[in-house]
Structures are given as structure tokens and as C-alpha cells.
């Protein structure tokens, strides 16, 4: 009987492995570029985690509590996945994959920058289950790392959490993050979490922010990451747009 139980447990674990994790990829592939998006900083890039980044390593946690009577953790995460881009502050675009947030899917991102510039980048869905999902960045993203969005029950509340484990990708982004980029990122996630809570019916919920420097050392051997910088490449892309022939695009989903 215990052998049967063990087998059942193993089968369950194997099923979770196959369902929740992305399959191995060496480089990212963007099959369709929605109107308004650019896949230049994603297609053909490798994924880059906190180990591959340049700057100090940070763990940033943003939490917002919603009464559990309004929504359960699984329902909150389901809504978050379905309407992910709707919770982002204005001016930033998350072009969700056509199949939704599923393991292995790649989403393109357009982030508004000062000076009416748009930083084109993206993420891959590394992991997704009923109560959490994790996005991992490609080379050249402003930071190398992953973002885990999750929800749990705490007392009578459902607590939504966004946790970012990151290092600035290269020295240029490290300077940018130090000179206001971190503050801007905090505002971004605080606005996102507030919007998420409001959608769940909790207006005026406050966002708890915790920022921890996990490693204050910079990985100087990674300075060459600047070659992949999405900021530099996006700038060049924008400046050369008038000189490129127009190509038909897939309509935005």
C-alpha cells in the first residue's frame, strides 16, 4: 500500500514538473510581434538570471492584502494572469502571448522612458501554477533576474505579492537604477499592486514594500553585458525607424 502511495506521489510530482515549468530553451523565439511592439531585444537572446547580471543583487517584495471574502489566492492569480497588462501603470505595455501566461511563452514589453523613448524588451514565463507565476528576463533587459507573482492566504486576507530578484544587467543600467531607476521601479509595482487590489474590490489598500540588498558586490566580469543593452538597442531602433521599410504586422491581441 505504501508503495502505491509512493508511486502516486511520484506521479503527481512528475505531472507538476511537466505542467508548471517551461521546457528548456537555448535562445528565445518570438513567433509573432504584435502591432506596436518590437521583438529586437528578445528574439535570439538567452535568458539571464540574477547570476548573470552585473550590479548589486536586490530582492524587492511588494505585497497588498485583499479581504479573503472578496477573492481566493487561486482566483486572484487566475485574474492576474488573464489581465496582467491591465494592472500596469499607463504608458507601459505588456504584450501577452496569444495563448496567455503559460510556461515557456514569451511576452514583449514596451516600457516608457523619460524623453518619450520606449524601451523594448520582454520576458519568458519560466513557471506558472495556480498560485504563482514567474517571469524571467532575457539578456539586455534592464535587469537580469526573475519576477514571481503569487498569492497566499494570511489570516482572513488573501495577500498578493510581487517579488523581484534582480541585478542590473550592465554598468549603464546599474547607474540608471541607482539614479532613480529603483525608485521608479518601486512606484511601478506599487501602482500595479494597488490596481490589482482595486480590481479585486479592495479600494485604498496600501502596498507593503520591502527591499533587501542580497549581495552588495558588483560582478565586474559581467560588464560586457552592455553589448546586449535593450536601452541602447531600443534607441538605435527608434532613431532608424524612418529609414526602415514597413513590414506588415500581426494585429494586437
Amino acid at each position: 500500500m505504501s508503495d502505491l502511495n509512493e508511486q502516486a506521489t511520484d506521479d503527481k510530482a512528475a505531472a507538476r514538473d511537466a505542467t508548471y515549468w517551461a521546457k528548456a530553451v537555448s535562445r528565445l523565439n518570438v513567433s509573432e510581434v504584435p502591432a506596436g511592439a518590437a521583438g529586437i531585444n528578445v528574439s535570439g537572446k538567452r535568458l539571464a538570471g540574477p547570476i548573470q547580471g552585473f550590479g548589486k543583487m536586490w530582492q524587492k517584495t511588494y505585497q497588498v492584502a485583499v479581504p479573503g471574502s472578496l477573492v481566493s489566492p487561486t482566483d486572484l492569480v487566475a485574474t492576474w494572469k488573464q489581465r496582467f497588462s491591465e494592472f500596469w501603470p499607463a504608458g507601459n505595455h505588456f504584450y501577452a502571448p496569444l495563448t496567455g501566461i503559460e510556461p515557456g511563452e514569451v511576452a514583449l514589453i514596451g516600457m516608457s522612458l523619460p524623453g518619450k523613448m520606449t524601451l523594448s524588451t520582454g520576458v519568458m514565463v519560466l513557471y506558472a501554477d495556480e498560485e504563482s507565476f514567474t517571469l524571467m528576463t532575457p539578456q539586455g533587459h534592464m535587469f537580469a533576474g526573475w519576477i514571481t507573482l503569487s498569492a497566499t492566504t494570511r489570516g482572513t486576507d488573501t495577500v498578493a505579492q510581487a517579488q523581484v530578484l534582480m541585478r542590473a544587467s550592465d554598468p549603464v543600467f546599474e547607474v540608471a537604477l541607482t539614479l532613480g531607476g529603483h525608485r521608479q521601479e518601486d512606484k511601478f509595482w506599487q501602482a500595479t499592486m494597488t490596481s490589482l487590489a482595486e480590481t479585486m474590490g479592495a479600494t485604498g489598500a496600501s502596498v507593503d514594500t520591502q527591499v533587501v540588498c542580497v549581495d552588495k558586490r558588483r560582478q565586474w566580469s559581467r560588464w560586457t553585458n552592455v553589448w546586449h543593452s535593450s536601452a541602447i538597442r531600443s534607441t538605435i531602433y527608434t532613431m532608424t525607424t524612418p529609414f526602415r521599410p514597413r513590414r506588415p504586422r500581426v494585429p494586437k491581441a
Partner: protein
Amino acid sequence: MTEATATFETRRQGSAGIVDIKGDVTSGSEDVLMSAYDAAGDSKAIVLNFSELSYMNSGGIGLLVTLLVRANRQSKQLMAFGLSDHYRQIFELTRLDEAVGIHDSEQSALRAAGVS
């Protein structure tokens, strides 16, 4: 914080600390994993035994990065053995394999750590 669903037992083998992992590793495992790391004391290498790992989610992978930073800070090597094919792929996908030495067996990991 979510509840810990894994156990981590530490044993010493020469100058290495071997951490035997059982169960599901999630973000809720942080305290028990860090306690197991501390129990390895002044060992020069930490060897993670994943032979009896049932499951690990992305929160668990995040914990390993934090553990790696801690080990690097104390000039300790971090190694792993007993990973299933699936988790070997996850280590490759997340590029953890670039910083954590992956081995087929405990003996191989200990040899690489310079522990006979």
C-alpha cells in the same frame, strides 16, 4: 510566508557539508534551508543532495540563488548531485548550472570539492 514542505538534514564529510533534501522545496523552505546551511559550520563546500527531492517551484530556485550568494560571500563552493533529468534542465534553463557544480554522485561532488 508559506509553510515549509521539505526537510534539510546536514551531515559532515571531511571539510564538506552535505545537505540531504527531502520533499517539496518552495519559498516556504527558506528558514529550514538556511538553518541547514548554518549547521554545515566552517565547511569549505556545501553539497546539496537532491536524490529525494519531490518537487521544486520557482520560489525554491530563488532560494538556491540566495544560498549561492551566501556561500560565495563566505568563499564556499556550492555543489549539487542527485538531480533528476527534469531539474538538471531547470538548472540549465535558469542558468544556475553556471554557478552551482552539478554532479552525478556524492563521491563525484566531493572529489570536485577536494574532499576525499
